[in-house]
């Protein structure tokens, strides 16, 4: 949706890197938006933790009717990625045909343009590409 330059200044910079929130009370790793309280134990003692960027596609869908900001990109893959650190994150998977991904595909994070704010700011964020360097399991 429309994003103002002020909101962009607030929400944009954290998306330049991939991180999650670690609860210092129960050690749970939660997605990056949980900085108010730990969804598991309720503690408010949470710290940012950088992620390696590597993970596995644990669920996905292929969107044929995108929201306005994604018009022209359909069909695109968007899914839940279980990062190697254990946390589940939502993100698009790009650079690959929808029929070439499956549950279990190894992916890695990269920086991409996500959408334009209505005051002319470019919102960058993390998208995922297939991890070509991932070890192929022995046949």
């Amino acid at each position, binding site marked *: 949706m429309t994003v103002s330059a002020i909101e962009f200044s607030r929400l944009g910079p954290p998306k330049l890197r991939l991180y999650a929130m670690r609860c210092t009370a129960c050690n749970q790793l939660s997605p990056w938006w949980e900085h108010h309280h730990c969804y598991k134990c309720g503690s408010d003692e949470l710290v940012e933790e950088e992620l390696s960027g590597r993970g596995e596609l644990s669920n*996905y869908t292929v969107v*044929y*009717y995108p929201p306005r900001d994604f018009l022209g990109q359909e069909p695109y893959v*968007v899914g839940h990625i279980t990062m190697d650190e254990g946390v589940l994150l*939502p993100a698009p998977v790009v650079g690959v045909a929808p029929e070439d991904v499956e549950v279990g595909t190894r992916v890695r994070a990269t920086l991409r343009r*996500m959408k334009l704010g209505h005051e002319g700011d470019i919102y960058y964020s993390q998208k995922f590409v297939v991890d070509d360097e991932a070890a192929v399991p022995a046949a």
Partner: protein
Amino acid sequence: MRVGVLGVGKTPHKIQHNKSLRDLAVESSRLAMTDAGVEPSDIQALYVGNVGSVGFNYENSTGLMVAHHTGVVPAGAVRVEAACGTGAWALHLGCVAILSGLYDTVMVLGVEKMNDLATVEGTSIIAQAADSKEEYFSGLTFPSGVALSARKYMQTYGLTEEDLAHTSVKNHHYGARNPYAHLRFECTVEEVMRSAKVADPLKLYEVCPMTDASSALILCREEILRDQPDKPQVYVTATQMATGTWYAATDTLEDAHRLFAEPAGRAYAMAGIGPQDVDVAEIYNSFAIQEPLGIEGLGFAEPGKGWQGAADGSTWIDGKVAVNLSGGLLCKGHPLGATGATQAVDIVEQLRGTAPPDMQRPDSEIGISACRGGPGAVGAIHIYQRLEG
């Protein structure tokens, strides 16, 4: 608890370019008040369920606007919002108002006008009822968020897309018979499978249309309805609400089950019944997969088996419990703020015996409506009973 349902009313559910948000609200309110035999001046409080008027219609404060145009001024009015569970929340607040003893007669009204904007704009506004700042920022839409649940369900229980397609077939069978429904065509499993992909694995016939509609109920203290024995004696006998996660990323199948199972457990206890006593159910299904999940959450089937009733007949009109004889949201559409209220109206009509003949389950005594909202954020359970005498 017993809250009397004095009157109900609903507008047709479809694209209605010639009617505004307030036109729809006034229409359902008049139908409900006429059915109840009350005047606007009898309404002591108004609860208006509406989700997206700021986005869809560029207007806010829907409760106050509807109060003015329905003529209930000077009674108090407020807009209620809880994503797709809004209509059920308006109903809940109406019941709470009556049960508190502060009010004798209140109106519960749900209204949504989604079709003044183009579809692509509309879906962006619907996405605001999920976390569009963080999670849906990544290109998810509501259909694609639910699609992830569908894939999880199929994977967990080893099901195919054909297995899930039966739900749409059943809903469309009854939607075709519902004069108020948006979509009124029957379909086969093959046609469901061939319908256009929306968000893999969800297909067009497994996704609800964007609809303009309003529905309303007049609720009253138990004694008021008791004292009018010529009126159908239908009461709300339980109302229980719950929240769940705001994020699809933290919404597991167990969470989806719990979202209904916990408030349903409390509701059954409140009404003094069990799942086996339920004759008819309206289960939220803006996307087909939500019906099996809801059937399981309400205790009508074991986890992983909720889809079977549509295939083997046990959730059809003469099955163990008839689910979504209105055609469900798949055929009625999902006018966000109205849906929960429309579910209530449809159950009341079943219990009264006033639904059209080929979608009326005879001698229905107990009904349940289950509404949900957000990725997994709202659960709302209401139980209704027709009492003798």
